[in-house]
């Protein structure tokens, strides 16, 4: 029990349990239906990618506000480039674009010695601006051929009745967890966030760690965008707007401390699950869609305060 309470995802686990109990109590028939659960899990999986990326960045004591725009930009690139490059080519180029955005932001943060909040705020605008200018506000669609492509089905189809996005999340989630907790890179990432000076004094190239983490975050966001569109191939210019807020909320709910060095990828995914569940339950209860934003805000504030208190109780200095 003690080890469980010490893990950073403890708060998120409690949150999920409480949330499920409450939803069951107030809306049993509406919540526990196959359609609702399937929808929630699908979109929670998509948000899970963004949340994990955000969690990694937060663990290095930075923040990435651009993920919503990168999600949109990569998705738009994927759809728009498919007619010219084919589905596989478009996926590769779109992910390269995401990598490039992450790389540029990482470089600006570490080499320009700028606060990541400002750099990624700029990234948020720039990437969104590129979407507007590139598409000119028009809507793009997938051809029948592209829909039937093996790559599209690999990314947006189903396997044994389970949606591809969920399987992808499981695979990538396991890989990232191994990377974070079982490789030297993961160790250096946590050290960079925990105490940059100490990490540097032990020869860790903290600049490189941060750049790689920003690239990981962007590519995860971009991949989530591609997964969304492979399933429902239609773009619009506002794709992924405000998603950065949901991703940060998910990571914070999942126990990532903004003071760096501590966090949990599983917690971040659970946080994404909580955020998405709220969206669907509010819709199911007939609340206006705008209340969702309000609720995410409240959940974010409650979660950050709760996790902070939990961390202080455990004796961390935050």
């Amino acid at each position, binding site marked *: 029990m003690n080890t469980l309470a010490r893990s950073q995802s403890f708060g998120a686990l409690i949150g999920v349990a409480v949330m499920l109990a409450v939803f069951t109590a107030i809306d049993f028939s509406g919540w526990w239906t196959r359609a609702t659960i399937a929808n929630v899990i699908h979109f929670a999986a998509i948000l899970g990618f963004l949340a994990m990326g955000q969690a990694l960045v937060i663990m290095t004591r930075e923040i990435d506000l651009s993920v919503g725009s990168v999600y949109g930009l990569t998705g738009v690139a994927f759809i728009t480039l498919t007619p010219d490059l084919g589905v596989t080519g478009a996926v590769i180029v779109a992910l390269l674009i995401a990598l490039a955005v992450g790389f540029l932001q990482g470089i600006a943060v570490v080499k320009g010695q700028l606060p990541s909040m400002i750099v990624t705020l700029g990234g948020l605008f*720039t990437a969104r601006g590129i979407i507007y200018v590139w598409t000119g506000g028009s809507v793009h669609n997938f051809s029948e051929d592209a829909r039937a492509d093996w790559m599209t089905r690999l990314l947006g189809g189903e396997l044994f009745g389970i949606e591809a996005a969920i399987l992808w999340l499981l695979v990538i989630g396991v890989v990232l967890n191994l990377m974070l907790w079982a490789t030297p890179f993961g160790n250096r990432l946590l050290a960079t966030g925990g105490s940059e000076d100490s990490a540097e004094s032990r020869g860790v190239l903290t600049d490189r760690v941060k750049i790689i983490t920003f690239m990981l975050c962007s590519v995860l966001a971009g991949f989530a965008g591609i997964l969304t569109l492979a399933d429902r191939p239609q773009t619009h210019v506002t794709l992924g707007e405000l998603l950065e807020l949901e991703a*940060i909320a998910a990571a914070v709910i999942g126990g990532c401390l903004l003071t760096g060095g501590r966090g949990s990828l599983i917690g971040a995914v659970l946080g994404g699950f909580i955020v998405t569940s709220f969206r669907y339950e509010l819709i199911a209860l007939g609340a206006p869609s705008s209340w969702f934003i309000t609720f995410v805000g409240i959940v974010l504030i409650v979660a950050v305060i709760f996790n902070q208190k939990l961390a202080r109780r455990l004796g961390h200095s935050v």
Partner: protein
Amino acid sequence: MALAALKPLVRRHAEIGIFLIAALLVLWFSASSDGRWANFYNLASVLQVTATLGLMSLGVALVIGTGEIDISVGSTFGMGALVYLWLALRVDPALAMLAAVAVGAAIGAFNGLLITRTGTPSLIITLGSLMIFRGIAIALTEGFSFSIPYGDRSGATYWALGGGDLLGINTALVWLVVILVVLTVTLKMTPFGNRLLAVGGSASSAHSRGVRVDRIKLAAFVLSGVLAAFSGTLEAGKLGFADGSMGRLMELQAIASCVLGGCLLAGGRISLIGALVGAFVLSSIQSYLVVMGVKPQWFMLLLGIIVVAAAYGDRRLRNWSVTR
């Protein structure tokens, strides 16, 4: 050699950079737009946008001065506008303005109390309240209409609260100038201002000298909420209507103005006039794109690049000014 003599000046006044940029932009825009940008009508509208964005930026600059950040101002702006429009016809425009400002103060107090009492990062708390009040604003406008018909907008109060012009320029500018002077004097010449900057420079040092750090921060957040809501009131007074998305992304522009104006995000070093010129530069660029017939979508792209470039330029300028 001549440049080296400027170093002490730049060290003390980081806003010099933005003044130069503003001057160059004005020259360039005037020269290249064939009179479409530099005419009285267009400049008056640039100044009106500057006034509302500038008021918001002043509040954000004060919060940045304490080493915190307030990104909830976009929603506070929207709430201020809605409260004013809701009450102006039903009660009285002056009281409506006071109510809007009170709501802004309440949102600021909400942020400030949560941040100081729980010791949580202001970025997350104000991100949360940005979403909370945006959701509330949209929900409100889905059920009710918020507008004052043009014919009802008569009387001195409407005129003074952004609804009229003085010498052809929106009255919001007068408010901006007055508030800028008051805040600058407060910041530079009163104990409160001294303590505010001390808190941002080193909260622990300020604390050890007996400064009530939490109170100073709370006051800064309340001021920021008040200014954002008041600026929303002025915008509503000009437009006469509002929807739930009013003020969206303005929080980001306000932060951009502050960074452009040489406010250090780490706290302790801010320039109110710099933040204001930053707001002027942003609204000038926006209007230039419009009059030149460039798709407005480009503004967002440019804004992103400008923010990062400004932060980088500011950093370089500071580094240069402290080298020997």
